[in-house]
């Protein structure tokens, strides 16, 4: 009954369908007895976590699959309580410190110290160390990353870290240099097709060739998305004929496209306020602001004159960057919307723009 994407996830490194070189390397590392800190990075849906799970299995054996979830309370210096969900087995522990936003440093320090100061009690364990998996490592604050540095060296005898991130650019150099970097690239269209076919075979049907191609293309390297789409399609349309196929967009994407259309249709203060309401709706329902601006910008750019495209994207990039520095995302999103409207109207009446790229 679980989703195909979970049901058919490869459990061990041997079952993986692509990046065989990487799998072999991970296996060799796990067998060597010495194991470095590692940083897995690559786009979402490429298989980072699957590979981490495989590596842990290789390291510790079946025991790592017995997971339990625990909610722990941490106290900040200001006595604020933080709830953190922790997934752990007897050999490893997984945390997502970014859950607690700015207080991630507290969580990192507490958990790592605790793990690092206790030795493996189970004498039959394959390794003397425990592994701490840190998810979303690229959204760790600077403070938290700084807190990691020293611990990584000091407690090497008891503990290894596996960081999981989308890109290394937001990690400070000292962390990167302490880790073995493992890039998990997005699968190519062909690799995705093999996986899709494999899943279909396991589920007892076959997918027409065109359909596989269509899904793989639409997923754009995100295998998770491809598998979820495949399952959704199969539910709607059991024979999966490519001609009749209409890959349904997720709710937020359709919503973003609506917003883009609204921007193109009318440029007025009243419209900005309508757009604002929609943006609030998206943000409050946990759609990341950078995804929002990217999706809307893509859709807007599709519909405007060639001359405007570069400008619109330029400003989207600027406001996206500001959004990351600032607190209230909506302010920057709205500023971008107003900018686009202003650019559009200017172009419509072909006035010269006063503000240039150089303004920033």
């Amino acid at each position: 009954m679980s989703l195909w994407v979970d049901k058919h996830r490869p459990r061990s490194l041997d079952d993986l369908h692509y990046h065989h070189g990487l799998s072999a390397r991970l296996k060799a590392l796990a067998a060597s007895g010495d194991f470095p800190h590692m940083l897995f990075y690559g786009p979402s849906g490429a298989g980072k976590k699957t590979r981490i799970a495989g590596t842990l299995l290789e390291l510790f054996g079946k025991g790592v699959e017995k997971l339990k979830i625990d909610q722990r309370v941490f106290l900040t210096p200001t006595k604020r309580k933080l709830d953190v969900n922790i997934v752990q087995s007897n050999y490893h522990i997984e945390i997502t410190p970014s859950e607690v936003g700015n207080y991630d440093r507290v969580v990192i320090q507490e958990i790592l110290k605790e793990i690092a100061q206790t030795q493996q009690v189970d004498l039959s364990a394959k390794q003397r160390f425990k592994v701490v998996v840190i998810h979303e490592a690229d959204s760790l604050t600077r403070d938290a990353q700084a807190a990691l540095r020293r611990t990584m060296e000091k407690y090497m005898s008891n503990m290894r870290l596996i960081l999981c991130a989308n890109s290394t650019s937001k990690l400070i150099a000292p962390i990167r240099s302490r880790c073995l970097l493992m890039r998990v690239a997005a699968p190519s269209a062909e690799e995705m097709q093999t996986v899709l076919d494999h899943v279909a075979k396991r589920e007892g049907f076959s997918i027409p060739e065109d359909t596989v191609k269509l899904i793989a293309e639409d997923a754009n390297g995100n295998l998770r998305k491809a598998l979820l789409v495949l399952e959704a399609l199969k539910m709607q349309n059991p024979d999966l004929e490519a001609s009749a196929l209409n890959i349904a967009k997720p709710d937020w994407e359709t919503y973003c496209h609506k917003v883009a259309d609204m921007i193109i249709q009318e440029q007025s203060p009243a419209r900005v306020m309508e757009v604002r309401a929609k943006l609030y709706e998206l943000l409050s329902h946990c759609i990341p602001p950078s995804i929002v601006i990217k999706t809307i910008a893509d859709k807007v750019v599709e519909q405007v004159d060639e001359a405007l495209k570069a400008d619109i994207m330029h400003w989207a990039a600027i406001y996206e960057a500001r959004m990351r520095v600032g607190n209230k995302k909506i302010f920057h999103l709205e500023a971008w919307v107003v900018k686009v409207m202003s650019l559009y109207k200017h172009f419509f009446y072909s006035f010269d723009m006063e503000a240039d790229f150089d303004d920033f």
Partner: protein
Amino acid sequence: MYDGSIIAPRSRGPGGGAATATSPTSTSSRHVGTSHETWPDRYAPQSLGDVCGHKAQIAKLQLWLGGWNSNLKSDFTRPGKDGMGTFRAVMISGPPGIGKTATARLCAAAAGFTPVEFNASDARSKRMVDIQVNTSNMALDRWTVRAASTSTVGVASADRTCVIMDEVDGMSSGDRGGAAALAERIRSTKVPIICIANDRGAQNLKPLISASYNMVFSRPDTFAVRSRVLSILYRERVTVPVHVVEQLIQGAQSDVRQVLNILQMWTVLKHGMGTEEGRSAVATLERRPVMNPFGATHQLLGSRTSGTSSMDMLEADIDLYFHDPAMVPLFVQENYLKTTPDRLHAVVGPRKVVEHLELMDKAARSLSDADIVDAKIHGSTQYWSLLPVHAVQSTVNPASLVRGNGLGYTGPTAVSFPQWLGHNTRQIKLSRQLAEVQAKMRPSTAVDGAEFRLWYVPGTLPHLVRSLVMDGARGIDSTIRFLEQYNLSREDWDAIVDVGVGDNASAIVLKKIPTSVKTSFTKRYNSRTHRVRSRKAAARSDLPGPPAHDKLYPDLEEIHSVSVELCMVAVGFHYAVQSDDDMLDDGDDRDANTPGSDAFILPPRIAAVAARGGGVRSGRGRADRGHTARGRVARGRAPRRGG
């Protein structure tokens, strides 16, 4: 009122007030400038005649105090001619500096009571009120010091006390329960209690209001105060014109204490005060009204007739920001699009449209700048010195760009409350729910953060909702199976449905499912037991606490090799989640008498029964398990100590 917290009134005994009031010879003979006493202290009213105004209230208070004994005898059942006979306490309220405390003290003394005063400098928590405010006895001084009319601490003693609770609206967070305790006291007191407050409407005074007679002191008129002030000035040998004194009194709103303070300060510097000086003194008194953000926004974004210099405007606008630095920027952001900017009044046609958008663009960019500054102020760096920059960027600059007509008080363009706050709260709530769902699904999925919302939520929705919509009641079982597969609960179902937008918005989705299906879904889910892998952290801290001898308890979190189940039994944890069967690392730790692998969460009601000693699962079995678990914990601990 004029002296700080000294309990004793200056009058000695009941009749002393009149005697001392005739001539305060000691003070008038002192030379100005040599004394360190402040005028308000030196000229505090010595008798009821010195109090400015409040004649009616004083009369009432005297009558009440005078009739106290007979009222006490009749157990406060007879209202008397002014209706005060049924009250055991009086609440005096009024603005500061008009003689509330002095009146209370003098009235009490005049009626033959010894005033005992508590004010904000005394702790007045519930406990302290209970202990200190002795309301059933007569003054002890009378018994201990015998013939002497003053006690050792200078408290004049009569045979009866009167409690004056000053500044009761100042009972703050530290005095929790103080007001309620006081009200309780009032209901049974045998001595009169006079409570004094500035703001009768204060929330924490509610219990007192209902228990006491309410007496309002209003500001005395200028004439009543003037004569008193002039006589003081005469004694101090200072000449100040009458109209200046009046001006001062009006400026201070009849606050006698403040008037005297100002006059003393001026006479220390120069001997006297002229008209101009009076005016400037009054100017310093002016209290600036704190504007609410709505008013500030109207002023900021509303049209302005020019005339003031731009420098003044800048300062005025920054001031508006500082009325409420947290809210005003949000109000500006919420409302800056609702105006028709003044700057556009000379432009027409398409150019107007374009220039309007340009102004909006500049304003929006300024708001975006401001948010970055705000992050520096409120983030980890805490650059509070940037606050003025934030004021300009978030408020002054956008307002100056789009300022104009159009902002109404009602209708679609009315100044509205910032939506940001509500949406932000909602976002925090939903993302917390989502994080919880994601953590529960973690063992069987490999996804986190944004990806979960972006792809998994739309992916799971068909499984969670479609069958309920299409098959109605028949779809319930498959939905529940899906939830169980992912360790999700009925609440998690709600959480996932809640985060949908557009066509997946929860309102739309929930409307598609018939109500009967929804209720039977809930019922059927609750009627079964489900395997749950996670447990709430709160459960651990909400425990009634381990038995005192169980010293092993704190180690709970550090022992990884002990299964969760056994640990929880060890601390007497009855109904929380017990760990999954397959998570027990070694089977031999489980006693024969444990009912095997029933890793279920018991509904709290059943658990409560079990805890009370009824036996859903026998209490004895639990005790046995607890015992072994403790042993196990101890064993688990040993190697750590050694190594």
